[in-house]
């Protein structure tokens, strides 16, 4: 056990790796991935049923002790996000909701304004609201005031695996937000996740990089190790950067 825990709403977690259920070649891999990664929170989406392709119930792949985090993907407005959130809560029994409002189909950029509007409504209704955002400090502070349980800035566009492209902006959130900062989207390698944790992110959410790996279970484990390593590095205080060399050995002469 560890006393270094992540608090979201009224729940406490020992894992700082959130995972997603999208893009797995076989949903049967999800439970093994969850076990290997130690992830305690996993996202799911809500969609109209497809009568042609009868798919398995994704919820059957997720153990009871893992917290479901339904997302509002598919929503293009705050109103739609609120509607999806209410259905998701009633249908799944969880208060957790990841707000995802996207109007831009090419880059899948979150619409910060609609996301704030949805957060204001849902937090008042008792949801544990985790908004997916572009890292923007004034917005993050507004979300905090509106009752968001965390903020989830993107590292890079969804599914791109490009890593922490927004690093300086995320650093501002980490330095100034009272609520946890969870880096979501774009983390393609365990080293990206470690870097996010080293800079003080409270957690990361990884879906594509794990789900589309050749071996998602082992990749889940790799991300778990990286997140723990990054967190420990952050807690132990990183060294300072310098433009010049700083000798590690004594500079006194020897043998002359």
């Amino acid at each position, binding site marked *: 056990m560890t006393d270094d825990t992540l608090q979201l709403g009224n729940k406490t977690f020992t894992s700082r790796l959130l995972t*997603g259920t999208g893009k797995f070649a076989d949903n049967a891999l999800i439970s093994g991935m969850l076990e290997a990664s130690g992830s305690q929170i996993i996202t799911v989406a809500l*969609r109209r049923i497809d009568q042609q392709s009868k798919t398995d119930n*994704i919820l059957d792949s997720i153990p009871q002790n893992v917290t479901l985090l339904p997302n509002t993907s598919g929503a293009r407005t705050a109103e739609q996000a609120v509607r999806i959130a209410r259905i998701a809560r009633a249908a799944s029994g969880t208060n957790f909701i990841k707000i995802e409002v996207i109007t831009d189909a090419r880059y899948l950029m979150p619409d910060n304004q609609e996301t704030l509007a949805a957060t204001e409504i849902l937090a008042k209704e008792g949801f544990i609201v985790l908004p997916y955002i572009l890292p923007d400090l004034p917005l993050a502070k507004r979300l905090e005031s509106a009752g968001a349980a965390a903020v989830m800035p993107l590292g890079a566009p969804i599914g791109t695996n490009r890593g922490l492209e927004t690093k300086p902006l995320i650093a501002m959130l980490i330095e100034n937000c009272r609520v946890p900062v969870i880096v979501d989207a774009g983390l393609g390698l365990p080293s990206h996740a470690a870097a996010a944790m080293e800079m003080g992110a409270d957690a990361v*959410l990884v879906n594509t990089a794990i789900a589309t790996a050749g071996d998602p279970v082992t990749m889940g484990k790799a991300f778990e190790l990286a997140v723990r390593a990054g967190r420990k590095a952050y807690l132990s205080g990183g060294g300072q950067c310098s433009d010049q060399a700083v000798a590690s050995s004594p500079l006194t002469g020897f043998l002359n």
Partner: protein
Amino acid sequence: MRIKINGRDQDIDTGSLTELIDQMDLPPSSLVVEHNLRLVPQDQWATTRLEEGDVLELLNFVGGG
């Protein structure tokens, strides 16, 4: 009668939600039903009557990030 199912107008020959779900051969365990913007828990499917012009959303949880 004609109702809207998942955004499409469809003619159905039953006023019973349970019967409709049965006819459509949908898996009840994972089905989420919204009827005229109101979520209908599974234990209320049998007592939910459908009427002309109703709007039905039949949803399920799927993989997502």
